[in-house]
């Protein structure tokens, strides 16, 4: 443990950056343990609130670390927490990505890439299913997601803003009608 708040944020968050395999969902539990039980930055309930806020605002959901940093040490805390989460993994991605592209076209590169791509596609669809599960909106959410998917198949260049506005309008209308 460190007594200096900015240093403590880095010590807690930076390692999580490199264990976040398969996306941000891997960090929420260990971060909660550190922030609530070890450092007492927030209560368990407040942590869930931060999680909800990060989910409904634009940007990656993992920006819950940004508001955690804000709670701990104001604007410097927010900045340090954000950088601590994204810099290590992004630096790694940069280095590996450069290496990856240098050997583009070689035989082993093609084999590894062809091996990884079906896994990537499977994970992508799994990610969508997981969001629907967290949302807990039932069949309506599934119907809306599939409708958006069908619309995009029909009109691939349809602007996402139109879809987003439509989706919001449908949910508000239904919620108003149901009460």
């Amino acid at each position, binding site marked *: 443990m460190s007594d200096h708040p900015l240093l403590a944020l880095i010590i807690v968050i930076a390692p999580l950056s*490199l264990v976040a395999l*398969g996306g941000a969902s891997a960090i929420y539990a260990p971060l909660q343990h550190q922030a609530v039980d070890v450092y007492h930055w927030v209560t368990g309930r407040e942590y869930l609130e931060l999680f909800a*806020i990060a989910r409904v605002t634009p940007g990656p959901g993992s920006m819950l670390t940004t508001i955690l940093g804000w709670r701990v040490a104001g604007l410097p805390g927010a900045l340090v927490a954000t950088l601590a989460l994204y810099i290590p*993994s992004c630096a790694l*991605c940069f280095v590996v990505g450069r290496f990856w592209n240098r050997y583009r076209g070689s035989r082993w590169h093609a084999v590894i890439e062809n091996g990884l791509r079906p896994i990537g*596609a499977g994970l*992508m*669809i799994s990610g969508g299913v997981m969001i629907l599960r967290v949302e807990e909106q039932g069949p309506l959410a599934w119907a809306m997601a599939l409708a958006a998917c069908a619309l995009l198949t029909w009109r691939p260049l349809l602007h996402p803003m139109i879809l987003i506005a439509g989706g919001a309008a449908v*949910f508000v209308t239904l919620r108003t009608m149901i009460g």
Partner: protein
Amino acid sequence: MQKSAPSVSLLAIYKLFFLVGMFSFGGGLTAWFHREIVLVRGWMTNDEFFSGYSLAQLLPGVNSTNMAVYIGQHVRGAAGSAVALAGLLSGPFFIVIAAAVAYNRLLELPGFAAVMSGVATVAVGMIFRLGMASMKGSVRHWPSLLVLVATFVAVGLLQWPLLPVLAVLAPLSIAAARLYGPPQKDKRQKDKA
């Protein structure tokens, strides 16, 4: 192999990633990247995009920031990566703080929760569509279809932890790609891109 990167200014990169970052509610980021970078701007081919996506997913870290780094690097090297990442995060950085400050008042807004749910479900639709596009290029023989389905069942349906699933499937899938022959992606992807 030649990279398909037209000359792009850093300002154009920043503007694009800022815009996508600001409007990416509920997790449709990658689908939006694909639209703007492959379909609209042609900064990458389909193949380059999904190759980067597989990499971004397997490496630790958030997919969207990894993808921003990968795309930025492809288009403008190290500076491109830094600018893409800054563009993606700078808008949401202030919004998320503002939302945390105003959280209790936001919840009292009528329809706020409904709007957010609606936005999230549409984002999932975008992800599904991108998943379908990705499938087309990644299923080249029956083992790759099997790997795709197994990944989805294990992670998406059974919610098994990702790491052991990858540790088993990745080597198997790469071995299958080695056995099942020469990749014909170059010819096939050109038609689609």
